[in-house]
């Protein structure tokens, strides 16, 4: 039952996000727009490049969707409202999102086109930049909660949300999450002005629809992860827990989607250098600081 509820709210969330994305990116606010767009994509030809690796090309979007859904599966929306409350939920989330990389490499390599291939390998570079900054902040969160279960992690924030307990980790995690979902200004693998669509460039018709849907699911999963790890999950006064989850997740997703509109894309070299020189140092310092606080203060 709860699985069905989560899946339905996921569908609703993905649609809401699509509305927000069109508003943020194209400046058109239309409630029905994404529905028409999805229908139109269904009716368009789904092309295949002639010397492509068809298996990779077909599997890329599917794997992306599977990865996104697996990540969503461990996001709690309310007490009891979660698909699977794995004891290693935070780690599992990470594992699922690692396949985003695999999917994009497949999607990039598959069509044997220059833009897509460069985009796929670029995303591997981007992954190397953000990967540690996802993992290390999560470790600090798990230290406080003494568990990897996402439900436990939310429960551990009853007194104080992690965003205040470990703000450095929060900032690192959100930036890394934007890199994972290749959102601007970290949209290196589908940069319009650099690769004319990149990994998405060769996808048309229904395959493109699946790819876009998968992307929305991934953004939602990451927003959900941010809320779960740092913003107290379903916790909040007055409103019922699911409402708090919905509000927080949509707000985080919307801001992640629209912030890139106001700045140019980052350069890959700078991104890597910043992540490794500044980001990892900060992440390690964050772990240390959280470690000291956790030993001194019993919350």
């Amino acid at each position, binding site marked *: 039952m709860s699985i069905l509820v989560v899946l339905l709210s996921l569908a609703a969330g993905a649609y809401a996000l699509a509305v927000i994305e069109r508003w943020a990116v194209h400046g058109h606010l239309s409630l029905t727009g994404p529905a028409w767009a999805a229908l139109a994509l269904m009716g368009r030809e789904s092309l295949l490049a002639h*010397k492509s*690796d068809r*298996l*990779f090309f077909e599997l890329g979007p599917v794997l992306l969707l599977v990865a996104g859904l697996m990540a969503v599966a461990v996001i709690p929306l309310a007490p009891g409202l979660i698909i699977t409350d*794995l*004891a*290693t939920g935070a*780690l*599992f989330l*990470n*594992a699922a999102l*690692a*396949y985003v*990389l*695999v999917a994009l*490499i*497949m999607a990039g*390599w598959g069509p*044997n086109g220059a833009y897509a291939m460069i985009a796929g*390998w670029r995303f*591997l570079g981007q*992954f*190397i930049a953000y*990967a540690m900054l996802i993992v290390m902040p999560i470790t600090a969160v798990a230290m406080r909660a003494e*568990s*990897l*279960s996402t439900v436990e992690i939310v429960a551990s924030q009853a007194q104080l949300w992690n965003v205040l307990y470990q703000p450095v980790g929060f900032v690192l995690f959100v930036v890394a999450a934007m890199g994972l979902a290749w959102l601007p200004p970290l949209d290196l693998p589908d940069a319009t002005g650099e690769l004319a669509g990149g990994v998405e460039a060769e996808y048309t018709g229904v395959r493109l629809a699946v790819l876009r849907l998968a992307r929305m699911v991934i953004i939602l999963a990451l927003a959900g992860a941010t809320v779960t790890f740092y913003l107290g999950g379903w916790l909040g006064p007055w409103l019922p827990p699911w409402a708090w989850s919905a509000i927080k997740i949509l707000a985080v997703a919307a801001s992640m989607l629209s912030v890139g509109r106001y700045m140019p894309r980052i350069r890959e*070299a700078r991104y890597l250098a910043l992540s490794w020189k500044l980001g990892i140092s900060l992440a390690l310092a964050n772990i240390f600081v959280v470690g000291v606080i956790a030993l001194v203060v019993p919350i």
Partner: protein
Amino acid sequence: MTVQMIFLAFFGGAAVWFGVVVFRTHSMVRSALALLFSQTAIGAMFLVMQAEFLGVLQIMMMATEMSVMAIFMVMFMMDPGGMGKMDMTHQKRLSLWVGVIGLLAALLLVWLPDWGPVAQSVPGAHEQAADLGRELLGRSMLIFQSAGLTILTAMVAATMVAIVPNAEQRK
């Protein structure tokens, strides 16, 4: 129990099949990703055997590390797309022998030692992770720290081999 065994066999078969694909394909990227999915299947086998932490860790780490391997294969192997249909195998007799000996060794390792009585119940997944942590900080601390040193050695060695230190410093 039987359902568990069926899934174990399924994922085991998948792991072997992907392992075969590694050598049957001409494309380097396919080869690398086949190895990736073979390792993922092994991770799924761990899950079926209720070793959750180990399984999830395997599924996560292999995805990332095999992807990194893929880029190095594409960097250094000729014709990474396999468009020339070049045969990737060579030294067949030697590899056959090595393979057979390796298989025998693995089988011996499975059958010969005394693995003790079969556990009747599996500790919970959270307990597994916590036990592992206690082990790291207790009895196996030395092993843990030497693992750190080993990783350091690997980092230094990799840097020394692969990085040209005197190349012009570009920003």
